[in-house]
């Protein structure tokens, strides 16, 4: 889902992450790329423009320019802004009361009938007694289609073949529901253009009679720039209460979701993810935003890092690294910190392009190695950890046996640690030099 937008934005973010500092002008550059990516995702051009403006204002207001990892901060800004746009909370249906009606509306072929069936299935599972109402009097076999879905679900369908007056259908369906103890009516209406005034008025009349609690606009995820007009018109005429986004099982980038939310301001309540009746999920703005950006997982990584990594601690470690005072004890702390963020596989999988990396690398091996290292260091005394040079053959044998590995493995670890220390010392000097020249950022723990 959203593959193309994802890869585009990932490029943008890759660039951002690579930057140690972000100046006002390169924020603008990156945001221009974001705008382009949004347009390619079918976000309406006005919506995209406003979005970018907003992020820009925030980015500069928050002085990301001075932060240590501005790239990540911008990622979070863009993500948060997108979540805000899509709606912060997952909104359910408002179905309080003894008997309520829902009305499905939208353009031709957007998925109204299928979504009616999907909703009926969901409500049935929640213990309600749904009645499907065939109120599409235009499309050939539309009523048969709904009836078939009802049969599949073992649910009643109100069908009046030959009737062309939807208002009459509405009235009779209400009476039928009352007589048959059905407490949720789902009205499947015919597809229509938002500019087809007589047909839109037909829906207005149906609404008068049925007094639906929810009027849901069914919107195809692949809808282009016109999503804004479609949503605006239907909302103005009918006061819709929300939307269902369909066909998200494809690779449409789903910009219509953003367009819809930003012009109508009503929640997207569900999403269709397939042709079958069970292919239906509550809409999660957060997940959607992350999916659209394709770096969602990066966002959770950043958040996770922020959660688990004590900033002070990280700073202390970095300082030590630079001075070449990094001990095995510190190494253990760092290992643990990384491990507390979850299995390595998950961590790498969260990074852009990490999926590809996972294909090639045997991470479970690295994971095992990590654990073994941890075990080895744990088996050392604090004194040994601080002064590796005191580890003679006897001590080494004790540690190796204690953690169930061969001495050669411990030797290997110590050797590698020694190399690491050397490298850090060099880096530290190099950085001091650069620092004096006003260049390069300090080595962040999570820079790759």
């Amino acid at each position: 889902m959203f593959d193309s937008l994802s890869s585009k934005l990932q490029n943008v973010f890759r660039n951002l992450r690579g930057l140690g500092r972000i100046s006002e002008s390169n924020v603008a550059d990156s945001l221009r790329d974001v705008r382009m990516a949004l347009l390619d995702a079918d976000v309406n051009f006005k919506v995209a423009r406003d979005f970018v403006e907003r992020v820009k204002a925030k980015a500069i207001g928050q002085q990301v320019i001075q932060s240590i990892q501005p790239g990540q901060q911008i990622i979070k800004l863009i993500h948060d802004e997108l979540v805000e746009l899509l709606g912060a909370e997952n909104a359910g249906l408002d179905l309080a009361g003894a008997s309520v009606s829902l009305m499905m509306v939208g353009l031709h072929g957007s998925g109204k009938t299928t979504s009616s069936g999907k909703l009926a299935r969901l409500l049935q599972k929640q213990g309600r007694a749904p009645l499907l109402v065939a109120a599409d009097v235009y499309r050939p076999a539309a009523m048969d289609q709904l009836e078939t879905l009802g049969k599949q679900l073992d649910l009643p369908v109100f069908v009046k073949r030959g009737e062309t007056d939807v208002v009459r259908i509405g009235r009779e369906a209400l009476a039928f529901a009352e007589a048959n103890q059905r407490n949720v009516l789902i009205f499947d209406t015919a597809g229509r253009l938002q500019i087809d005034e007589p047909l839109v008025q037909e829906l207005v009349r149906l609404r008068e009679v049925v007094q639906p609690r929810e009027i849901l606009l069914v919107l195809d995820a692949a809808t282009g720039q016109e999503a804004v007009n479609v949503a605006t018109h239907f909302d103005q005429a009918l006061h819709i209460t929300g939307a269902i986004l369909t066909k998200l099982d494809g690779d449409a980038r789903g910009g219509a979701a953003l367009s819809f939310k930003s012009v109508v301001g009503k929640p997207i309540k569900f999403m269709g993810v397939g042709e079958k009746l069970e292919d239906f999920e509550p809409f999660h703005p957060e997940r959607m935003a992350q999916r659209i950006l394709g770096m969602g997982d990066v966002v959770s990584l950043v958040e996770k890092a922020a959660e688990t990594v004590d900033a002070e601690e990280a700073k202390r470690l970095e300082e030590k690294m630079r001075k070449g005072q990094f001990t095995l004890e510190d190494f253990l702390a760092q290992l643990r910190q990384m491990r507390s963020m979850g299995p390595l596989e998950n961590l790498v999988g969260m990074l852009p392009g990490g999926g590809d990396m996972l294909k090639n690398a045997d991470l479970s091996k690295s994971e095992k190695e990590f654990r073994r290292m941890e075990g080895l260091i744990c088996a050392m005394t604090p004194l040994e950890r601080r002064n590796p040079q005191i580890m003679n053959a006897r001590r080494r044998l004790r540690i190796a046996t204690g953690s169930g590995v061969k001495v050669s493995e411990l030797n290997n670890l110590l050797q590698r640690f020694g190399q690491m220390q050397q490298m850090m010392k060099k880096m530290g000097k190099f950085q001091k030099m650069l620092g004096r020249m006003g260049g390069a950022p300090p080595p962040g723990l999570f820079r790759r």
Partner: protein
Amino acid sequence: MGLFQKLKAGLQKTHSKLVHEIKRIVTGSPRLTGTTLAELEAALIGADLGFAMTTQIVAAVKHAYETQGGAGPDVFAIAEAEVARSLAANEPALKRAANGVTVVSVVGVNGTGKTTTCAKLAHLIQDRGETAVLAACDTFRAAAIEQLQLWGERLGVPVVAGAYHADPAAVAHDAITAAHSRGAQFLFVDTAGRLHTKSNLMKELQKVHRVMGKKLPGAPHEVLLVLDATTGMNAINQAREFHKAVTLTGLVVTKLDGTSKAGMVVAIQKELGLPIKFIGVGEQPDDLQPFDAGQFATALFSEKG
């Protein structure tokens, strides 16, 4: 690059800029203002041409504008001509088999208007005094068979159908036999909607075509992809993937009676060079028109709704 080359390249740029500027002054062409260009860009993107295509057209327009001279031709008129030109090499007529029945397979993602287009095409053929047969190869979607059968009844066109969940290839096979024995000129095959990302469903479609080709060499003679005008950039993926799977011969753009301009076909045309054969402008049988590049381009820049 050495310093000398760098300088030279830099000068080259300045030089061509200069030449352009002189030409502009000589021809008396006005310079384009930022606002006009922004307006043009908004119109193109708003018509679903997409960012890349829009950038290309804006550049072409800028160039044309500043070299054509005279009284400052209308930017939008140039853009319109640009779009019309890029879509002009279209041949809207349906192909015909050398002899016997011409098989037209109608494919696309869910809900774009395939079934309705099949009915409209059959109607068109009948209007010409020829005969058509419809094949109900969507054996998956609820009431898809009834939908086509109702169209058949309404138009007086025979419909060949199987059972639900039957192999659509078998239905297609039988339909060719039926079309033969009826001496029909055209067979329109209504296939199930499928997302181009679902490889099993794309394989199913390939099989339908393979079976038809075995039964009747050359069939299907036309493979028409039905695109919904309301679709945005995803239409490009749809066209690309369907073309890869079943070698399309043309496009049909439906729902152009709405407010969408279907600008994404400009990019599709550029990438795949597929002719747009028909447009759908309503739900009735005669709401089908041969594609006209000029009209399409004009509509692209006109206000609707």
